[in-house]
């Protein structure tokens, strides 16, 4: 039911996002959903003249995802949020809070999203 959807891969992610930027699309946000079996859907939402275009990427949650914060600086907050919520690692984040955007050092459980996970205790 999501209109204007384009399926992309990890390899094509940064290229497709760069195309969006060249096309004058404004980055709105991404949405992430745990789809089970250790995978998640990340949908990147872009807007131009009130028309939304969505790039859908299915990722393995234990593998790093290339950051698009180099293309769209504003993505840094969203990627840091997803690190906190889903334990997905983003490579190349321009400002990496290291899963501490929302959480304090002493917090060992991610209390926010569907895939509640224990963080590794600090040594």
């Amino acid at each position, binding site marked *: *039911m*999501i209109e204007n959807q384009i399926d992309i891969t990890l390899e094509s992610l940064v290229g497709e996002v760069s195309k969006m930027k060249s096309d*004058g699309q*404004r*980055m*709105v*946000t991404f*949405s*992430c*959903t*745990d789809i089970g079996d250790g995978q998640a859907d990340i*949908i990147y*939402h872009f*807007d131009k003249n*009130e028309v*939304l275009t*969505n790039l859908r990427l299915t990722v393995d949650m234990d593998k790093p995802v290339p950051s698009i914060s180099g293309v*769209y*600086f*504003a993505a*840094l*907050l969203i990627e840091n949020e997803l690190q906190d919520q889903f334990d997905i690692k983003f490579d190349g984040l321009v*400002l990496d809070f290291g899963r*501490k*955007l*929302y*959480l*304090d050092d002493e917090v060992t459980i991610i*209390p*926010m*999203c*569907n895939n509640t996970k224990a963080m590794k205790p600090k040594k």
Partner: protein
Amino acid sequence: MARTIIPFGPQHPVLPEPLHVKLVVEDEIVLEAIPALGYVHRGLEKLAEIRDYHQMIQVVERVCGICSNIHSMCYCQGIEEIMGIEVPRRAEYLRTIWSELHRMHSHLLWLGLFADAFGFEALFMQFWRIRERIMDINEATTGSRVITSVNIVGGVRQDLTPEMCSWILSEVDTAVKEIKEIQNTILNDYTVCARTKGVGVLTKEQAYDLGAAGPTLRGSGVASDMRLLKYAAFDKLDFEPIVEQDGDCYARSTVRFRETLQSAELVKQAIAGLPQGDLAAPCKGNPEGEIITRVEQPRGECLYYMKGSGKKFLDRVRIRTPTFANVPPLLAMLPNCELADVPVIILSIDPCISCTER
């Protein structure tokens, strides 16, 4: 001069909510700003696991008190679209009326807080006094001043009688008259102009590239307004996005001031066109599928992504609030400003940490 890091917030007199920005300053000039969030994060998205999709209306209303009605409207519109429910036309008009009243009281609240930020307390008091008229309307028509709880999946739970409509029109007209009486002060006063013109400039290109939303985007010359998507009754209302070109604090405050008057006009248009009919369509079954809905809140574009799999609990509710989008633009406004201007610049995006840390 040596560089110093000054913490702005999380407790600061100008902000009722805990926004924390680390300011790297040299002398009294800000060189860099680094945000820190998480002081009051509530994990409301996770509540979708244990609150069914009807109960989630009450949860999303509490994402933000000031735009509670618009949050629930956005959420309900998404669920209705997934489930193929056709909302009665009267309910769409009623939703529009309450949402524009919310925009009015939110902007009046902000205009008062903004005046207070640069020390103009008499102006603060005047805006909040006018705002009370709108709060009284909310209380009289929904039973609550802030969390109105009128939206349900399929429509609304409250109606407006002809007497209520007449009274709302009269109160809105009086509010507009009173707002116009202080128009000269907020737009032309020496102190206001000195503290806001040329301060915290965000160019059109920066606003667009950094994903700004709402008055922050429109104050920089981009005519983007989600009401152009014609949701609810906006397809029948006559309006144009309000845009200012300068991108400074003055431009953003002017957009909000003009939008307050615009919302009053939209309330009047919606009441004039209010059709007869049912308040809600029946809702059967559970949502199955994915949906993205967007609405225009007082602070800007709000996006909901929802996914259901035919159960009463949604698999995912993702809420992108406008303040979250306006934090990166804020980081572009702060460098090279004077330390004394930081509260004014931060307030100029109308930060809502309640929304950001939903």
